[in-house]
C-alpha cells in the first residue's frame, strides 16, 4: 500500500528524518514508537503533505503513486488520513459542514456524484455512534472548546467518515481516559479491513492491547532503528529506550 524509501526531510534547514524505510501492506497494522523528538510526528506531517517540511531525499509511493508530488488535499483524496497529535481548533467552521465539503470534493476527485443530504446525515449518525461522539460535538465548530479527549474522538470520527485506505494515528491515545481509549480503539478496529492499513504512533503498550499491531518499529533520531512483532512493544514498555539508544550508538 505504501512504500517509503530512504526518506529524508528537514525543517528550517535542520534534518529531522534521516532515511526512513518502511513498507506497509493492505490489512496490516504498524506501530511506531520512539522517544520524544525522534521524528514520529514529522514523518506523519511529511506524509500528509505539510509544506513547512522539505523532503530532501527519498520517495514515497502510495498505491503506486508518488504522493510527494501531490497537494495535501489530493493525498487525502487518494485515501491517506492523519489523526493529528494536536488537532487544530477552527472557530466558526462547522465540523459537519467541512466534512461534507471534504467528502464531496473527494468524490468529485474520483468522478463521483456528491453525497445526498439524507445519505450524509445517515453517515454522520452511524459514524458518530461508532466513536460515541456526542452529536452536539459533531455539529460544533471544529474542535473549538473540545476537551483533549473529545478532540481525539473527533479525529477518529472524521476518519470513520472519510474511510481512508491508510490511517496514521499520531498519539491518538494521549489524553484519553480508559473508557475513551477503549471506545476509540474499538472504532479503529471496526474500521479495519483487509483493504486498509493503519499506522499507530504511541508511547504506550496500553493502546496496543486494543489495536494489536503486526509490526512494531522504533524510530530514533530520524531513523527506524528496530523492527519487531507486537512483543517488541512489551519489551520497550519494560526496558525503555536506553538499551536501543545504546545499541544504536555502538
Amino acid at each position, binding site marked *: 500500500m505504501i512504500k517509503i524509501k530512504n526518506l529524508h526531510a528537514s525543517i528550517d534547514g535542520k534534518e529531522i528524518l534521516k532515511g526512513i524505510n518502511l513498507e506497509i501492506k493492505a490489512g496490516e497494522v504498524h506501530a511506531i514508537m520512539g522517544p520524544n523528538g525522534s521524528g514520529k510526528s514529522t514523518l506523519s506531517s511529511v506524509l*500528509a503533505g505539510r509544506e513547512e517540511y522539505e523532503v530532501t531525499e527519498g520517495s514515497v509511493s502510495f498505491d503506486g503513486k508518488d504522493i510527494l508530488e501531490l497537494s495535501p488535499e489530493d*493525498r487525502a483524496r487518494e485515501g491517506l488520513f492523519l489523526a493529528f497529535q494536536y488537532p*487544530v481548533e*477552527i472557530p466558526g*467552521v462547522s465540523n459537519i459542514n*467541512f466534512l461534507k465539503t*471534504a467528502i464531496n470534493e473527494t468524490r468529485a*476527485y474520483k468522478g463521483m456524484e456528491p453525497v445526498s443530504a439524507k445519505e450524509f446525515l445517515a453517515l454522520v449518525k452511524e459514524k458518530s455512534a461508532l466513536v460515541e461522539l456526542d452529536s452536539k460535538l459533531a455539529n460544533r465548530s*471544529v474542535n473549538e472548546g473540545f476537551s483533549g479527549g473529545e478532540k481525539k474522538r473527533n479525529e477518529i470520527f472524521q476518519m470513520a467518515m472519510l474511510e481512508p485506505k491508510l490511517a496514521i494515528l499520531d498519539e491518538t491515545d494521549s489524553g484519553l481516559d480508559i473508557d475513551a481509549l477503549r471506545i476509540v480503539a474499538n472504532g479503529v478496529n471496526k474500521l479495519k479491513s483487509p483493504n486498509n492499513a493503519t499506522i499507530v504512533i504511541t508511547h504506550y503498550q496500553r493502546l496496543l492491547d486494543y489495536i494489536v499491531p503486526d509490526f512494531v518499529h522504533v524510530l530514533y533520531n530520524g531513523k527506524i532503528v528496530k523492527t519487531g512483532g507486537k512483543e517488541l512493544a512489551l519489551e520497550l514498555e519494560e526496558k525503555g529506550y536506553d538499551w536501543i539508544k545504546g545499541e544504536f550508538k555502538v
Partner: protein
Amino acid sequence: MTTAELTKKDKFLTVFSSLDFKSEPEHYAQLRKEAEAELLTLDFPTSKTEYWKYTRLGKITNNNFQIGKVEQVDIKPFLIPNLDANLLVVVNGFFMEELSQIASQNGITVSSLSKAKTQNSTVFAKHFNQYTQNKSELFLAINNAFHTDGIYIELAKNTTAEKPYHIINITTENNSISQSRNLFVSSAGSEVKIIESFVNANGSENFINNVTEIYVAENSMVEYNKIQDKKDTNFSISTEQVYQQANSNFAINTATFNGALVRNNLNIEVDASNCETSLSGLYLGKNKDHIDNHTVVDHKKPHCNSFEVYKGILDDESTGVFNGKVFVRQDAQKTNAFQQNNNILLSDNAVMNSKPELEIYADDVKCSHGSTTGQIDDEAIFYLQSRGVGRKSALNLMINAFAKDALEKVTIEALQEYIDAKIEERFA
C-alpha cells in the same frame, strides 16, 4: 500656504455654483446659506487632522469633478434576488420616480427629499438638517449646502412598515460628483427596515458625498443596511447622523465590498434611556481599495446598550481603517458598551489601521473593546486540506467563518443571502 489651501477648497466648491435651488422654500434656502457660511470657516483636512489621519483625500481634492446628471440606468444588476421591497432609485443624487416602485401604506410617507421640502410638513421641517448643522465637518457642510436630492421616509406613530425600503443609490459617468441626502423619521412605536445599495453603473473616479439623517423616536425600531459596491475606481464619503430617543432600537449594518476611497462617518447620539444600538460592519478590500469606517456612539443617558462589531478582510495592497469611539457621559450610568474590530490580512502588502476608543465619564458601566489584526491560520488550512478539502475551499471556509457573525444582525433574509453570495463570489 493657508491661502493656497483655501484656493483649493474654493476651487473645489465652484462646481456647485451651477446647481439651482431657487425653487426651494425659504426655510431650506436659509439652511443652505448657513451651511455656506460655515464652509467659509472649514478647509480640507491636512496630514495633521486627527480625524482624517489615515485617509488622504488627494484623489478627491485634486480631482476635476463635474456635477453628476440625471441619467436613465438599468437597475436590474442592482436588485437583490428574492427581496420583496419598495424600490427607490437615486441616480447621481437625483430621485428617479419612474424607476421606483412604492406600494403606498397608511401611516408612511415616502417621497423624494426635494418634494418633502415643498409639502409644508412640520415633521420634516422639525428634523431635516437638525443633526447635521455646524458639526465642523467639511464634507457634511458641503452636503448641507449643496445636496441635490434623496429619499424621505416618515413613519407615523405605531406604524410598522410592511416591506423593507430598498434605495438604490447609483452613480455614473467619469469624474462626476453627486450629493444625495436622506432623512428617515420613525415616530414613536414605529418600525422600519431600510436597505441602501451604493453602486456604480458606469464611469470611474466618480465621487458621492452622501448624508443620511435618522431620527429614531421613542420605542421605535430602525434597521438601516448599507451595501457599498461601487467598484474599486470610485470614491465615496458618507455620513450618518442618528439620534435615538427612549426605548428605541437602532441597528446599522454596513457591508463594503470595494472602493478606491470609502469613508463612512457614522455618528449615533443616544440621548435617552433604555436604548439598544447595534453597529456592524464587514469590509473586503482588494487591489488598492481604501476603506475607512469612523464610528461614534455617544451614550448620554443611563441604561443603554450598544454593541459594535466591525470585521475586515484585506487583500493585495488594500488599506482598512477603523476608528470606533464610544463616549459614556457622566449621566449614562449602567451603560453596557461592547466594541470589537477584527481583521484578517490576506497579503503582506495589505494594511490595517485600527483604533478602538472608549471615553468613559460615568463610574457604573460595563464597557469593553478590542481589536485584532492577523493572518489566516496556516495550521487550520492544512488541517482542512488533510481531510480532502481543497486549499481554496479551505480558505473560503475560514474566511466565511470569520466574516459570518459580522453581519448577523441583518434581519432581512434575502439580504443575508445576497451578502453571503457576494462574499463567496469574492473569494471563489
